[in-house]
């Protein structure tokens, strides 16, 4: 599917989805309330068949978090980036998608570890790289550490 067809499929699912066509692949910004339903739809829908979660990550824009889910279809070879804006950085929370794509379990643990986003209904939400006793989440823009040096 090309960008236009993807847009039609997505806007057919919900009218609340905003698009950003400047990115390659297409970005679709989804309200948090409709996020999980859309993800289930994209996995099951025969037309789009997004069976492969390439990665998921988070970008800290200082006043909000933007979660990025990079989906791919191994049958049709098309990609899409599904984005969710989380306004409250300190209590950021979203539903896990690890029942849809198994690999999400570990990418979500990484985002929890480095950004502090909580994933509800996650089977094993622990830090993945850092020690359990670590304070703070290093990939946040406001993270400071006494050992950090200016480059």
């Amino acid at each position, binding site marked *: 599917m090309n960008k236009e067809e993807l847009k039609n499929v997505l806007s057919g699912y919900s009218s609340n989805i905003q698009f950003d066509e400047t990115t390659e692949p297409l970005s679709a910004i989804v309200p948090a309330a409709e996020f999980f339903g859309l993800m289930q739809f994209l996995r099951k829908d025969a037309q789009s068949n997004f069976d492969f979660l390439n*990665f998921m990550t988070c970008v800290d824009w200082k006043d909000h978090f933007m979660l990025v889910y990079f989906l791919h279809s191994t049958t049709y070879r098309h990609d899409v980036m599904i984005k969710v804006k989380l306004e409250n950085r300190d209590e950021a929370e979203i539903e896990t998608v690890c029942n849809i794509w198994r690999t999400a379990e570990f990418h979500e643990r990484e985002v929890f570890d480095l950004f502090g986003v909580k994933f509800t209904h996650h089977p094993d939400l622990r830090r993945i790289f850092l020690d*359990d006793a670590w304070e703070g989440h290093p990939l946040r823009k406001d993270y400071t550490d006494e050992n950090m040096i200016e480059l």
Partner: protein
Amino acid sequence: MSLLGEDILTEEGEFIINMGPQHPSTHGVLHLKLWLNGEEIKRVQPHLGYIHRSIEKMSESLSYRNFIFATSRMDYLSAHMNNEACALTVEKGLGIEIPERAQVIRILMSELTRLASHQLWWGSTGLDLGAVTPFFYAFREREAIMGIMEETCGARLTQNYNVPGGVMADIHPNFQKHTKEVMQQIKSKLDEYDDLLSGNVIFEARTKGVGVLSKEDAISYGVTGPTARGSGVSCDVRKWAPYSGYEKVQFNEILEEGGDSYARYMVRMREMKESISIIEQLIDNIPDGDFQAKTKNVIKLPKGEFFQRVETARGELGVYIVSDGAASPYRVKYRSPNFSNLFALPIMAKGGKIGDLVAIMSTLDLVIPDIDR
């Protein structure tokens, strides 16, 4: 997690042991926690972070020229491909075309890296499964490739040869001659590799039917590279999303249907032949011209998001850069192949024996610094 305070015997009578982080067959600091019933594996849980350097955070304060070189330390056996992925992403952001000569040099170096990486893997797989000889055979050929790398790039392992716009320097005058010699040498030895290990009865018994990964699981766990192709998943980025001019060369995507350790082994053995074929097609056809496009001293990417994927020796590496228009990236995310591949290990190892786990680990071909980043 306190390891000492925990009971080593569960209520179900399972025995908990730690494999690694310092274990010869984990090839690096990977820590696996195993739940065992006798010799049968009930559950595997990987623990990471022993070599986490936060390359993504570091990149946020490095320039677009410098951040590329940090990636050589992720999957150090695919250093050239990692650098290439970053260089391609920056070039995409700048919207520049790179000279054809640079593209061909990049493909040649990538395939040499892939060959060297697969040879190291072949040697260590033999070593893990009790055959010491392959290690010496593999290193003999790998050393010749390392020599070519040193001649042209100035370094053996972490070449740092790619820069935005092309490659750092032109190829060495002896590059073509030496590469052709080494290809002849390797071609004559590949059958020897098969005689030594592929058809060996003990080796077959230890890998056939061991650690089966189904096609559905491979896709759901985000597995890529030779590991996924061993389960019949077509995922070679060089084929379906060609970059650097891979669409101009003839090669086959290697697929095996077995999904077991032996299938993954055969994929890599056959891939070596494809890499040699790609190198032979290009080595006499390196176009004349510049090896680098002109770029500004201080590179600033326009505001936006850029993504590029390449096929490393272990699977799909994705580089996702978010730029706010400054001279350093606002956020860099590496979608590293080993991270996703590792987490398929628990389902592959479940129900097998401890000895099988070693065979599975070797044929997954993990490089731990790429997982931790």
